[in-house]
């Protein structure tokens, strides 16, 4: 302890020593009471000798060496201070950029921030022990030898193989992404040049970076038997033949009549029934309701109900006697016997009816066949029908028709009817390629609030 104190004092007494931490004041230690301990044991020396100040000092020395590159006390004054000549410095700074413009070598000078951050520590970096000693060197050597052997055989390790594979895939992906799908100058090539049905079609892999997955069989069937383009009836010609035009008009007329009928039906259903309308009489009755009592009704009706209820309750089953039971049993047996006899005779009789039975069976078979064929026919017809694919049913578009006076005499004066875009869209719906939909209605989420603006006020 004494030695440590001496050391400290020695250091403090040195002329140029500056401590970085001001806390290590010698007066602190005087204030604390010394603890008495046996000093005849080495253990206690270690335990109770106070070496903090020595350590602090050493730490401080190391700190100085680390940060400033040597003890501050040993440094010259020029290294620590500079003379602040405020005005002159600014002028210099201004002059510098001008020079910089002219000089090309400016870029070679390090930045000030780099200079500040540059460590000027004198302590060499600690040695990396692992650089000289390898843990598990023997094992690693053995692994390397094994790898060499495998490489000589031509076996590529799994990790490397994986990497190689990935690299290939990446390159293909980059190739595939070239230009937009709808680029008007895009080029095409012979796609159907080589047919390969295997899933690992190299062309497919090149395009997508994936193997092809088998397409379900059912996807290759068309959802409807209808043709893609349905040609308009001959009456739809721009200069139609009289009768075919009439036929088309008739068709359109029928559609309209059907529509009208449905509308009328709906109207009829929605109309108010005349009996439901209030007349003066019914209105009066309603007003007087409950004021005049129909005494007779009230009295008679509950009585009837009572009687019925009591009658139902009274019927009680009496127990059968033994004799009755025996009799019933005998009757039952007899009945069954009679039935069996009858059945037998009928069977015997049927032997003579063979021909008619055969005819009946034949007829039945014919009927089933007929029904079967009818059902098949219906199913075939269904294939050309639009299916119900969602909330809405398919609505057939209006027939394109021009009346006699709308028809143009020549191609120049022709006014096209209907829209082909709509026609195509409806055709897609009709062929079950897309489900019929309605345009989403605009619905305001937030309430509208009316505010009087300052610029304009309504006169009330």
């Amino acid at each position, binding site marked *: 302890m004494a030695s440590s104190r001496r050391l400290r004092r020695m250091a403090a007494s040195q002329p140029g020593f500056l401590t970085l931490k001001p806390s290590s004041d010698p007066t602190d230690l005087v204030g604390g009471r010394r603890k008495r301990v046996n000093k005849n044991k080495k253990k206690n020396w270690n335990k109770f000798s106070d070496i903090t100040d020595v350590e602090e000092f050493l730490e401080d020395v190391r700190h100085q060496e680390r940060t400033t590159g040597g003890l501050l006390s040993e440094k010259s004054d020029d290294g620590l201070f500079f003379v602040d000549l405020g005005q002159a410095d600014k002028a210099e700074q201004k002059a510098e950029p001008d020079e910089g413009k002219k000089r090309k070598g400016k870029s070679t000078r390090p930045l000030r921030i780099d200079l500040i951050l540059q460590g000027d520590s004198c302590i060499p970096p600690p040695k990396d022990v692992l650089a000289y000693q390898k843990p598990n060197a023997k094992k690693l050597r053995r692994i390397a030898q094994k790898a060499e052997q495998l490489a000589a055989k031509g076996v590529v390790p799994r990790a490397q193989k994986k990497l190689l594979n990935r690299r290939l895939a990446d390159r293909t992906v980059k190739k*595939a992404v070239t230009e937009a*799908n709808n680029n008007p100058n895009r080029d095409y090539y012979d796609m159907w040049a080589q*047919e390969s049905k295997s899933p690992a079609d190299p062309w497919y892999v090149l395009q997508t970076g994936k193997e092809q997955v088998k397409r379900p069989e059912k996807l290759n069937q068309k959802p409807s038997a209808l043709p*893609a383009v349905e040609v308009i009836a001959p009456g739809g010609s*721009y200069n139609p033949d009289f009768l075919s035009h009439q036929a088309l008009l008739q068709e359109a007329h029928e559609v309209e009549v059907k529509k009208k009928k449905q509308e009328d039906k709906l109207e009829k259903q929605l109309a108010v029934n005349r009996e439901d309308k209030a007349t003066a009489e019914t209105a009066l009755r309603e007003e007087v309701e409950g004021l005049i009592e129909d005494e007779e009704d009230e009295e008679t009706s509950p009585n009837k109900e009572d009687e019925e209820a009591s009658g139902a309750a009274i019927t009680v089953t009496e127990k059968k006697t033994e004799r009755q039971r025996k009799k019933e049993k005998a009757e039952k047996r007899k009945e069954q016997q009679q039935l069996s006899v009858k059945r037998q005779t009928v069977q015997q009789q049927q032997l003579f009816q063979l021909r008619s039975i055969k005819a009946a069976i034949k007829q039945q078979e014919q009927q089933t066949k007929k029904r079967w064929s009818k059902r098949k026919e219906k199913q075939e017809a269904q294939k050309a029908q639009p299916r119900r694919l969602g909330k809405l049913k398919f609505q057939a578009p209006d027939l394109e028709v021009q009346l006699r006076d709308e028809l143009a005499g020549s191609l120049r004066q022709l006014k096209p009817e209907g*829209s082909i875009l709509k*026609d*195509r869209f409806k055709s897609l719906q009709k062929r079950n390629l897309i489900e019929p939909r309605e*345009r989403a209605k605009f619905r305001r989420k937030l309430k509208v609030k009316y505010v009087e603006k300052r610029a304009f006020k309504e006169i009330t």
Partner: protein
Amino acid sequence: MGGLQKKKFERGAATNYITRNSARKKLQLSLPDFRRLCILKGVYPHEPKHKKKVNKGSTAPRTFYLLKDIRFLLHEPVVHKFREYKIFVRKLKRAYGKTEWSAVERLKENKPTYKLDHIVKERYPTFIDALRDIDDALCMCFLFSTFARTGKCHVQTIQLCRRLTVEWMNYVITSRALRKVFLSIKGIYYQAEVMGQLITWLVPYQFSHDHPTDVDYRVMATFTELYTTLLGFINFKLYHSLNLVYPPKVHVTMETLSSFLHGCKLFNKLSITGVKLSALSGSLARVVSTEEEEEAKLDQFPAEGEDVEKMEAREKEQKQLEAQKKLFDGLKIFLNREVPRESLAFIIRCFGGQVSWDKSVSIGSTFDVTDETITHQIVDRPNFDKQYINRYYVQPQWVYDCVNAKILLPVEDYFLGVTLPPHLSPFVEEKEGDYVPPEKLRIMALQRGEKPAQEQEEEDDEEEEEDEEEEEGGDDEVDEEEKAEEKNLKKMEEQKSQGKSLQVKVTPGKVRAENPARLEQEEKAEEKRLAIMMMKKKEKYLYDKIMFGKKRKVREANKLAAKRKAHDDAEKTKKKKARK
């Protein structure tokens, strides 16, 4: 007792279907993206047989998909692209919101794109499969190519559609594949025969768009996206099958080049080849320049009986087809500015005619109005001032009707200011006994090479009526003669029954002119009668039924014909009155 309890909706139909919403969730896509994916991959909704079972007891209307299809969609590489695109949009929106223009630019440069080549190959494993499904693609591309650039869809899509349709038309011209045209009030229907497949498509008239509001443009654009890819690959293959260069190049002579250059000044934006192509007036460059093509002849095999007839019919058809392909060969046709140029140029070139138009109408005109060798000029206005003597001035319908009739129709009916004969639909094929409009009958007669005897129609009505009567009578001639014979026989029998001795006389015999054709006919009729007599009861019943149906059809047709005649008469009297 007895195993586990069976639960409802865990097997059978309920497990084969999936609702749209759950499918969407399974694929982790938004509804528009899901819809797009389904359209591209050809996965369509399916109506289950027992909806209640599939819908787990509920009867609410839902859209169902087959579960297997959705599972198949899970493997689609394009799905990732959709997700990428979604993220791209999000980033772009954010960049816009923060007004970071450099970020916007960078993002736009790296816009994620995808290709549908693999989907096309997957959906159409062979070329013929693709060709069979091309109707829709053509319709859609022709439709989109006529759209105005108003932001209803991408301008690029419109341009691509235009390019593809022009390529297609040029292919049809070079292969002379067009068969039928029909001008309807909706648009123009074309039918072509490409590699044995009949392909029909619909082209809208120019400038006829009002954009309907109840059409989902996004869906249509998605279909078009797929179809442009499909049509492009098909075009490539078709061009190569004809030994043509793809992308197409046009042979241009020196005369036309100047007009092209003149045009290109006007349309500076478009590339020169594209403009040349869309003019439809130049022939395409070939890989190996062989002008003469070997004409494939039908192989002849020695055949017997019915086969011979069939062969003959086929040969005849082939000949007719060849003739039709050269319909306008050697004609030089000039289009006036008021007629639909593209359609007419396309058709005339399809059948080997030369076509041109005014320089200021469109580029690519090959000769001038003043050219003395022009044979026809297509005009669609009531009168025309300066007329050349050595050419016909006809209305555009003449071209279309000629194509459908497969012969050059007389031009008189189509002259300037003349009321046109009706334009009949070539897509109607009449069966035996159906009503055939008189105009069609006339064309059929012309096809057979007969001259119609209706030229003095308007001058002498009465004569014409007599003619008609005669024509009608022609069919019944045979019957009348038979009736007369029967009458004679009956007389003789009566006399026999009355016990009178027949007056026996020897009269000098007359030499009956034997008509071999007539005899043959009679023989045939007799054979038929005998065959009918030999029929079994069951077959006879069926036969009678068929005949009855035929007769009924004929009766209906007659009714229609009578109606038509009444209408015509009424018109005629009206005209007469007006004249008076």
